[in-house]
């Protein structure tokens, strides 16, 4: 009916988000990422 189909890439994107999130978290805790990034 012209609607886009439901998302099908959920699982891989889920895991990628976990890996990237944990990596950034670890880098921030290690002091590698400087403060003052956000709005």
């Amino acid at each position, binding site marked *: 009916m012209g609607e886009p189909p439901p998302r099908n890439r959920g*699982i891989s994107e889920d895991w990628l988000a976990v890996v990237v*999130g944990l990596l950034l978290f670890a880098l921030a805790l290690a002091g590698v990422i400087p403060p003052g990034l956000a*709005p």
Partner: protein
Amino acid sequence: MATSEHTRRPVLHAALGVAVVLALSWVAHHLSTAVPAATEGTALAGVGAAVEFPVYAILLGLLGNAALGATGVRERLSGGFRTEFFIKTGLVLLGASINLRVIASAAGPAIAQSVVLICVVFGFSWWLGGRLGLEDRLRALLSAAVAICGVSAAIAAAGAVQAKREQLAYSAGLVIAFALPSIFLLPVAATALGLDPAVTGAWIGGNIDTTAAVTAAGTLAGEESLQIATIVKVTQNALLGVVAVALTAYFALRVERRPVGVPAARQLWDRFPKFVLGFLATSVAATVHLAHAPGGKAAIGVVNDLRTWFLVLAFVSIGLEFRASALKQAGWRPVGVFAASTAVNVLVALGLAVLLF
């Protein structure tokens, strides 16, 4: 050669799409700091300070959507509009803001309030959505958004029930539309009702959906209110994982059950939003880090900054991916469900705040 060319171009287009998201996010970030500074001391100062980055990000995304649509390149670049990835990464990072020790030691009433409030408001919204004939996935998103923590909860629910992106954009739009006036109205109403600061904080934290708006309203109401509001909100955020698991189970086993032969555990695991595991991992790690590292708060502040960036990217992508057709189909009913559920949330949260704080 032809095959190589064929597979390379989608990657190039996706990279261009990501570049568009990054550029618009940078502008949204810039506006969220420049507008409050520019309106300071004018009649628009309150509005300038209250309009937060999600509003700029979604509006810029919608503008980009219109511009790319008019030039006919939106579909080609859409591979770079990774709303789910951006927001799920943001939610993994959100876990770092949840100090489980604080919740366990100081948030007894907050836990009671959150559990009762989520059950009552989610239940009401789900029931009303059913009565008005809303599609199951949309009512799951709206119910999670209004009952727990706004856009984050809608995203978690979207992962659990495999919702369409239009349903997510719709839910996010409603959350923001309702959160903006609440920032001003709740502190004023609390003063008019003569509530003490702790009750005001609990009311604000249990009521306003987005964490940033809770902070804004809590700040307007005073320091003690802000502290209580933050604890209540963080407790609700922590329950996000529980609701995501429950929704996954409900949709996998009841609403969209697959043909026989696929074990229930397998269906559950396939649908389970894996970022919830990352969310729990960062909560535990941040709690341990804060307990053992003297300067731990600064590092958690950096994680919160990163989270904000990923949410800006996500909101821009939501704007870029937005399609009006799904909203026209849904009509006014989702707005009615959200408004009625918000009213129930206001009243029940007030009753619980007075009772428990």
